[in-house]
Structure formats: structure tokens, C-alpha cells
């Protein structure tokens, strides 16, 4: 079936784009002139990894990966918030 082949090609091409995006993020995280740049790169890194996990779930045709993606979304936001709080106040929970 032609449309299924197109869909599989789209999944693979999108995965490639996301992986290249991850590499660019890692580059910014290693290079970042200030620590806020590194935190921003980490934030983008976890969002892109959610995309990669969803694509893996599509590729394998399994619904199991959804919970992992949700966990990463929640913990990633909490970690970004904690890092910003630490930079702003010098403490996380006052």
C-alpha cells in the first residue's frame, strides 16, 4: 500500500530531523556562554525527547510509550522550574 509506505517514510524522516535537533541542542548546552543558555538547551532537549519517544511509539505501534512521554514532560518542567528558582533566589524551597 502506497500510503503506508509514505507514512513510514514520514516517521523515519521526522525521527531524523528530531535527532539532528537534539544534537544541535547538545551543542548549545556544551557551548552556552551563560548558565541560563544551558538550562534553556536542557528544556528544549527534554521537549525533543518527548517527540522522539512518541515517534518510537508510532513506529512500534505500541501505546506503552505514552506514559514515559508524560513522565518526562512533568519531571522536565519541574526541573526547569527548580533550576530557575535556584538561580533567582539561591535556594529551591525556602
Amino acid at each position: 500500500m502506497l500510503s503506508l509506505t509514505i507514512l513510514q517514510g514520514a516517521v523515519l524522516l521526522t525521527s531524523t530531523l528530531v535527532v539532528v535537533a537534539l544534537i544541535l541542542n547538545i551543542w548549545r548546552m556544551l557551548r552556552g556562554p551563560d548558565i541560563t543558555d544551558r538550562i534553556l538547551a536542557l528544556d528544549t532537549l527534554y521537549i525533543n525527547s518527548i517527540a522522539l519517544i512518541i515517534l518510537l511509539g508510532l513506529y512500534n505501534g505500541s501505546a506503552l510509550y505514552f506514559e514515559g512521554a508524560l513522565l518526562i514532560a512533568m519531571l522536565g518542567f519541574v526541573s526547569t522550574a527548580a533550576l530557575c528558582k535556584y538561580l533567582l533566589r539561591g535556594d529551591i524551597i525556602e
Partner: protein
Amino acid sequence: MESVVHIIAAVLLLTGGFFVFVGSVGLLKLPDFFTRLHAPTKATTMGIGAILLASMVLTTMRDGRLSIHELVISLFLFITAPVSAHMLAKAALHRRVKLLDHSKNAQLAPKAAEQKTPE
């Protein structure tokens, strides 16, 4: 019917991948922190929304009933992306990260850095 859904999902996936990629290129190439903040918070959020929409469409077709699991993730990301961007901008102002030379209203940055949280 099935092939139409496949094509729609493929278009959504490619759109999402393109926007995620553009967000990361912006993160790498833009000149200072405050311009860099734009790329991941807008382009990447839109890209991941499109990818999750594609996953939703395909899962709905495969199971034969409406599947809105992915909507939870996209809603969560759409709420948290501006919040984390705001916190990062506040942290950068607090640390007095260097602005571009031709930033408009650059004289407001020290005042914003001094601002305390309301008691």
C-alpha cells in the same frame, strides 16, 4: 479512507519535525539569550503539538475509537512552555546576562533585575 488518514498523519508529522528542527537551529544560531529564548518556546512547542496530533489521529484510526491521551501531553506542554520561558527570562535578567547592543529599551533591564517578588 485509511490512506487519507495516513497521508494526513504524514503531513502532520513532517510539519512537526520541520518546526522542531527550526526551533533547535534558532537556539543555536540566534545572537543573544533573549532572542534565543524565542526559538524553543514557540517553534518547538508548535512542532511537538503537530507530532502529538499525528499520533492522536493514527491511534484513533488503529483502535477504532477516539483516543485523546496525547492531548494531555500537548495541553501540559502548551501550559508549561510560557511559564518556564518566563522563569528563564527572569533568571537571566537577575544574572544580568548581556543584551544585544541594539536592543530597544535596554535601560529597563537593570530596573527589572531589581524587582522583588511581592510580599
